[in-house]
């Protein structure tokens, strides 16, 4: 009776409800789900490696799958070094697929693009700051040596 109850509970639980539901879904139901649903669930829970594997499978059979491309953009956006390239892909995605997507998905991609644009701009500004890495200590040191030289000439 108890195990029946557990089974029923498990049946009505969604994979993203909690860790047990997620792992149970992964162990017992995942293989029977569509690849798209698998990718969505894995990306939502943060299982990056597994999600990438599923996304690759989708893209092999359907290279222009909008969901897989969107998830791939979402995962790659975790890595700052890929931001410029991911931004380009996000723009392409929006121009190719956005119109046919639900409003929530369109909004989510727009937010992603906004985030990537801000990040890219911020990283460009950071790159400009790199001159400080060497210039500031060198300027400081030469100023200090200059001050010592000045004082030695002025007072000594």
């Amino acid at each position, binding site marked *: 009776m108890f195990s029946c109850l557990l089974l029923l509970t498990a049946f009505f639980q969604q*994979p*993203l*409800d*909690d*860790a*047990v*539901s*997620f*792992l*149970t879904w*992964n*162990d017992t139901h995942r293989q029977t789900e569509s690849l798209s649903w698998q990718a969505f669930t*894995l990306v*939502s*829970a*943060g*299982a*990056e*490696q*597994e999600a990438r*594997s599923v996304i690759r499978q989708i893209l092999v059979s359907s290279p222009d799958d909008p969901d897989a491309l969107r998830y791939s953009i979402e995962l790659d956006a*975790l890595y*700052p070094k890929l931001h410029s390239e991911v931004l380009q892909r996000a723009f392409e995605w929006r121009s190719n697929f956005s119109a046919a997507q639900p409003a929530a998905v369109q909004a989510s991609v727009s937010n992603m693009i906004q985030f990537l644009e*801000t990040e890219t701009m*911020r990283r460009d*500004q*950071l790159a400009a*700051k790199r001159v*400080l*890495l*060497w210039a*500031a*200590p060198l*300027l*400081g*040191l030469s*100023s*200090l040596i200059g*001050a*010592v030289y000045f*004082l*030695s000439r002025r*007072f*000594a």
Partner: protein
Amino acid sequence: MILCAAFLAGLAVLTIEIVGVHWMAPWFGASALIWSNQIGIILFAMAAGGWLGGRITRKKSSLMPYAAAFLLIAALYLKMGEWLLPSFASLFQPEGLLLEEAAALFFSGSLAASIFFFALPVLCASLVTPMLIHEHSTRIGNVGQAAGEVAAAGTLGSLVGVFGTTFFLLPFGVPSTLFAVTLALAFAALSLCRNRLVLALVGVLALTSLLVLLYPAPAFSDLPSQAKLLETRTSSYQTSRVIEQSDGTRWLQVNEGLDSFQSIWKPNSLFPGGYYDLFALAPVYANARNQESFQAWLLGAGTASAVGPLTFPLGDSCKWSVIGVELDPDVIELGQKWMPLPEPLAQNYTALPAMDARAALRVANPNSLDCVLLDAYANQFEIPVHLASVEFFSEVASRLRDGGVFAMNIGAAGRGAPFLQDALCGTLSQVFADLRVHRVPWSRNRVIFARKGLHLPPLAGLSALLPSGLPASLGASCLPGQVVDGAPKSYCLLLDAKNPLISLQWQAWWEALS
């Protein structure tokens, strides 16, 4: 009066050295590299000051007015620096800078700040020493004795500066410490000479001090966007602040803030998110879920963010106790005030303040603990080396019962991360029977679990061991792709006597920047 001035100048130099690092810490941290920068620059300034002072004694006959003026210039410059340093430091911390991008900027910025803000005052305070020796020797007629007495007075002053700054002045805050240094330099100057120039400089110094008092400089780096500052405190160890995000989440940030935190608190939730949630696996791995009692130590407890996840899997009938070790008492107080544990948890949690984690753990009975968690990141970048060695891990294991679990959080980004992870895992494998690394979803962190004497439960059956109600992201972190099992084949062994952890960590962060 000459020896008094030497004493005060010596006190000022060491106080500037120590308070300088604490002053810069909100922007650059207070890591070993920052300390090295500061000590190196101070020593350079002292050497330059000694050389210059010696040359001045050759040319000038009446030295005391010069000595007094230099001491006052040092004080004045230091006081003006109180205004300027925050703006200068902010140049190295552009808005939105991420922790993994910051290492090189921190190193370079702290070096430049040491040169610009501390070298000149120390140079000025140091160059009076030869003048004082010269003057003293003229008065007592013996150069050797004069040099010895002035050097002794200066060194005693430095001694008082070291202990006084750390134990007495810094708890009152950096501005109060800077004010004390300024006062010491002004007294030293006035004890040497009271001519018009000196009195005028004292007047300017007083005016500057008043202005700084009326318009104080910001004491901490910028807040993250949309965050609200709840409280800031400065202790002998660090500057800490609690900030609140727009969704009610609160962060405890220590020294440099950026996008990271030392502890996190969410209203109405036991799971603060990130790597903290993964600590719920520790009692599961220790097979402690259905035990009648459970004992754990949390090393580097912060505001006890890990207690909620750690105790969640335990049964209702389990009598548990968690002891949290935290170096800085201010952090514990901030936690109790702004990030309180829910009442049932707070009753069974004890915070041990002002204790080093390794020393404190020796108090625990051997073979008594179910879990030990280590979350003792210092300066955002560094796991303290004495908390990551074969010897320390052996001490941890000696406190754990058979089957007990040790867990530690590591944060690393970039190509250097695997080296860091391998070094820690390899070193742990020397002591523990089994270990496993979980990647934290949406994060740069990983959590290592190591079990004493027994193997960890296999991943395949983990869902049967977990209680319901844990976050789904924790489940995601238990999938095979997110986990590395066992020790690496090759690694750098970390020992008390030879521990390259700092360079490994900096390598990881530096590579992330480049």
